């Protein structure tokens, strides 16, 4: 009786010690990376202290749980460290940089909220382009992907797998070359422009290249599989007896589609929308290669501020705002699907 009590109190002491040590390590680590604005790092080797602290802490925490249930944590540790060190830490570092001020290479942390207010005056056009192009591209992608996925899922028959392979095959061509190819297709004297001019849909001196149309065309093409595959998966899962039941109850095929197939495929459409919209809104390759500075998107600004202008704080503020917008969009989705489905 006393032995178990002693053991219990020992375990809880160990657990508390482990927690304290882990948290101390993480705080120290955060300070070292200037995530929290205290500068204590004198050489990169100082980071060993928090690493050892949190290492000891986690070992203590592991020691408090049963031997057999430690296995999953061992499996998670290597990947977890990678994700923490190179995803979580940089994200906080980005927040820190976004609140700095100064001129390259002397930036100081100063709670500089101007970096954020500046975004709404200086980069409104690029923000508008990003939203407009990404939204248009997502809608167009649904219009192309849905019938295509429907065809593969319901009319594919024995060729279903072949059709899926064919769907993915074009994306084995390198991304940038695929994008550059659209320069040939939409060229000023190319066939698409000539046909549109012939039909009177485009003015005689009109062009597609170097316009928003070209940028959207590139985005739609490059991210189409991200839309098609989730829609296909949700259509594929539909129980065919439901459709038979609808037909037995004298519903026309249009009604059956509207009342049965389409609602059941909505999870795929939502997933596809996220998978297309997110890379589209952050993309700058299509705008760089197929557009002009007038078509530039938020990604172009982040890229040029970080790598050309060397204005890190504003670039970081823009980058973090983009992340925030996307996380806000994702929250209802995560809540609706649950965490288990996210990585499935």
């Amino acid at each position, binding site marked *: 009786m006393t032995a178990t009590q002693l053991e219990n109190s020992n375990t809880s002491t160990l657990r508390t010690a482990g927690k304290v040590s882990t948290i101390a390590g993480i705080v120290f680590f955060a300070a070292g*990376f200037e995530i929290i604005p205290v500068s204590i790092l004198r050489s990169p080797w100082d980071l060993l202290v928090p690493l050892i602290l949190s290492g000891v802490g986690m070992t203590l925490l592991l020691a408090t749980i049963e031997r057999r*249930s430690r296995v*999953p*944590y061992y*499996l*998670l540790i*290597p*990947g*977890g460290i*990678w*994700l923490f060190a*190179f*995803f*979580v830490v*940089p*994200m906080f570092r*980005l927040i*820190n940089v976004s609140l700095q001020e100064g001129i390259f290479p002397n930036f100081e942390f100063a709670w500089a909220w101007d970096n954020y207010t500046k975004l709404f005056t200086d980069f409104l056009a690029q923000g508008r382009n990003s939203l407009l192009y990404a939204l248009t591209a997502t809608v167009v992608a649904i219009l*192309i992907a849905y*019938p*295509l996925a*429907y*065809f593969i899922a319901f*009319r594919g028959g024995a060729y279903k797998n072949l059709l899926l392979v*064919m*769907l993915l*095959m*074009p994306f*084995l*061509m*390198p*991304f*940038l*070359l*695929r994008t*550059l*190819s659209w*320069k*040939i297709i939409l*060229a000023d004297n190319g066939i698409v422009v000539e046909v549109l001019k012939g039909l009177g849909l485009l003015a005689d001196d009109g062009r597609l290249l170097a316009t928003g149309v070209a940028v959207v065309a590139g985005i739609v*093409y490059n991210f*189409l599989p991200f839309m098609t595959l989730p829609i296909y998966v949700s259509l594929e899962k539909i129980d065919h007896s439901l459709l038979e039941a609808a037909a037995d109850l004298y519903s*026309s*095929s249009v009604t059956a589609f509207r009342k049965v197939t389409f609602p059941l495929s909505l999870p795929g459409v939502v997933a596809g929308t*996220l998978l297309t919209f*997110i*890379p589209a809104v*952050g*993309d700058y*390759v299509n705008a760089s290669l197929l557009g002009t500075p007038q078509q530039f998107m938020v990604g172009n600004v982040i890229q040029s501020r970080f*790598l050309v202008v060397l204005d890190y704080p504003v670039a*970081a503020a823009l980058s*973090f705002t*983009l*992340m925030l917008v*996307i996380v806000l969009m994702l929250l209802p989705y995560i809540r609706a699907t649950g*965490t*288990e489905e996210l*990585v*499935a």
Partner: protein
Amino acid sequence: MTAVAPKPMSRTAGLVRRHTLTVFAVLAFLYLFLPVALIIVFSFNATQGRFNFTWEGFTLEHWDSVFGSPFGGSAAPAVDALLVSLRLAFASSLAATTLGTLIALALVRYRFKGRDTTNIALFLPMATPEVVMGSSLLAMFLLLRLPLGFGSLFIAHVLFTISYVVVTVKARLQGYDRNLEEAAMDLYANEWQTFRKVTLPLIMPGVFAAFLLGFALSFDDFIISNFNAGPRTITFPLWVFGAAQRGIPPEINVLGSIIFFVTVVVMLVNVRLQARRSRTASASAEIDHVPVADQSEKVSQG
């Protein structure tokens, strides 16, 4: 009972709808393959200017210069960049596959505290736009004064590949039979022996598919690499982007076509292998589970 005759209107409507869909699908596939076809066709273009956007006649010159003197000649910088990309994709996908497979094992096989956090931690990198991931990593590398190059690219590429590896391996792990592992444990195999002799061979196809996916993702990445490559390390996508600003040598089309054909072959072989594996797996499962009497019945029917 008389069968209800289908209304003639709805039949023609169905027919039209069916064909519209087929026509649409054919057009959609043409749309998907058109840009790829153009890249391949323009690798044979006898272009005169700096850009390769208008057709000027057929030539084998560019293919000859790539295969004839890959390390001298005008294709040399592109070939060098290609080699950097191949090395990077191999190394980073290998590391990401190792880390990701361990995570997938933990997620599928164990119930543990912190599962939800793990799932979200894996989902977020996939949901983060590449510019954000690339720029945040650069912000950290700048602070640490870490020289940018192959090392920083390796860190970044492993990071954005891990989640996709987990998804792929998890999908494969979910369907398989845990009884085999328990049988091994009953026969006094320890955990490590069970893993090496039973679990690993079973999940190997999934792990291999994950490795290929990781390789493809890393090989084709431009945005994150653009942030973290530094001035001296040039991957193939970085080189193409740089070249596109100055003019586009047709050798790029040749290399692109080669990459395309090689990856198509790898993809088809992989699809064949996976299909055969799942066929033999389901066949052997049937033999295991169906009692002898049933089996003979099946044979006589078949």
